[in-house]
Structure formats: structure tokens, C-alpha cells
């Protein structure tokens, strides 16, 4: 009885892990997308993107960041509390340092 119960619980936990992840094919697809985005980023060094240079790089950076966090780190599938923990730190950092950089911009001679 105990063995059956433990096996059942074990299976349920295993199932829980599996639901959080993606298939191997999914991970490889995500990696290929990241590789393609990196190639596009590097191409800005060799090709003149004109006024789109900076926005393209920043958008690509953000897209790659959120793809890794969402799919490889499983935040998209995991409990929202984990997202809260991480994004609180991230946006606090962005806010604090945006203010810090602005201070240097506006208050230095």
C-alpha cells in the first residue's frame, strides 16, 4: 500500500516536472531562434542599419533576454511567485540605475 502510494506520488511529481518543461524539439527550436537573432545582432556590425541601428539592437537584446528567461528558465510555465521574485529585482535595478544615469546626465557640469 505504502509502496503504491509513494509510486503514485512519485509519478505525479514527475508529471509535474514534465508539464513545466518543453519537448527536446522545442528547446532546439528556441536555440535556433536565439542563434538567428544573435546572427542578426552581429550583422549590425558589418551592415549599416542607419537610424534603426540602436533600436534594432535593443529590441533584439530584450527579445533574446525574455526568450531565455521564459523558455529555458521556465518562468513562463512556473509559479507566478518566481516571476515576481525575479522581475522585482530586474525592474528595481532598471529603475534605480535609470535614475542614477539620469542624475549623471542632468546634474554634472
Amino acid at each position: 500500500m505504502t509502496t503504491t502510494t509513494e509510486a503514485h506520488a512519485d509519478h505525479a511529481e514527475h508529471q509535474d516536472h514534465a508539464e513545466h518543461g518543453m519537448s527536446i524539439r522545442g528547446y532546439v527550436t528556441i536555440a535556433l531562434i536565439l542563434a538567428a537573432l544573435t546572427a542578426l545582432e552581429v550583422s549590425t556590425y558589418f551592415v549599416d542599419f542607419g537610424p534603426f541601428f540602436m533600436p534594432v539592437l535593443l529590441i533584439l537584446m530584450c527579445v533574446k533576454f525574455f526568450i531565455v528567461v521564459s523558455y529555458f528558465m521556465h518562468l513562463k510555465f512556473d509559479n507566478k511567485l518566481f516571476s515576481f521574485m525575479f522581475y522585482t529585482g530586474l525592474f528595481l535595478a532598471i529603475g534605480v540605475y535609470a535614475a542614477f544615469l539620469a542624475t549623471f546626465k542632468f546634474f554634472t557640469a
Partner: protein
Amino acid sequence: MADTAVHHAEHGHHTSTGLSNNKLGMWLFLGSECLLFGGLISTYMIYRGRVGEGPRPGNVFDIPFTSVSSFVLLMSSLTMVLAVAAAQKRDDRGTTLWLTVTGLLGATFVGGQMYEFTAMYNEGLGYTTSLFGSAFYTLTGFHGVHVTVGIIMLFSLVAIIKRSNVPGDKAEVVELVGLYWHFVDIVWIIIFTLVYLIPA
């Protein structure tokens, strides 16, 4: 009794939140690491134009070389996630294989960074040459140390798994190391764009 066991399994962990405290702690740690790297990146952004008599960023950066290093680190995230998937399937052989490949890719990245630092030093950019040099070496050096710590964690985990000596849920331990590894990857995604690709 069976109900209780299944109930625990559904929630996964015997904690007040039903979540793993280890995983919660790791996410909290990674959130705090955002503040550390945010400070280092901001400092670099402020001082990257302060080159003094030393070389300018554009003169010392080797973008094709760093692009390859970045690609290697990015692909190590794929091998890491494959290690986590293998651990969840309780495939010890697959787990140790992918953890080892991840560690080797990480070591390749760190080796590339050491080569880059040496080349930059030979071109006249020392740690105290200029504010740009100090900020650059501090930022990328801190990241390199994080990658090195990650490599030590990966190879330690391989050794522990081979001895079948993992305390607690093995898949969770691999996942926690994986979270740290992916974090150093996302930090590099930002550094590669802001430091290397966007000229000062």
C-alpha cells in the same frame, strides 16, 4: 493516506507556499544579482567614453571573436536545458553528459575571455589605464567569475551524481544549477549588446 501523498505530490513540496524553498531562494538570489550587474553595467555606461590617453573601445574590441564566444555561451544554455530535461526523466547518463558539455562550453567561453583580456592588455589597455578600462575589466571580469563559479558547480554536480550522492530531489538540484547558468547567459546577452555592439 494515499490522498495525502498525492496531495503533496500535486503541490510538489511540503512548504507553506507549496513551492520549493530552494527554488524560491534561487530566484530571490537571481533577482538580487540583477542589482549587482545593473550597477556594474551602469558604471560602464557612464565611463566608457573616458578613455584618457588609452585606446578607445572600438580599437580594442574584436567583434567577430566575441561573437563566437557569445554564440558558445548561448548554446551552453541549450545543453544545460537538455541536462535538466534528462534529470527530470531520471536519465543519469544523459544528465552527466549534458552537464559536462555545458561545463566545457563554459570553459571555452572563459578561455576566450582570458585570450581577449590578454590581447587588450598587449594593445595598451590595462586595468588602470583609463576609467573605461577599469569599468570594462570590472564588469566583464565579474561576469567571467560568475561563469567560472557556474563551471565549478556543473563539474561538482557531475561528480556528485556519479557517486549517487545527491541530497533531496536530484532533478531540482540540476534545475537550480541550470537557473544560475541561464542567468549568466542572460547577463552576457545584455553585456554583448551594450558593451560590444553599441559603440561608445
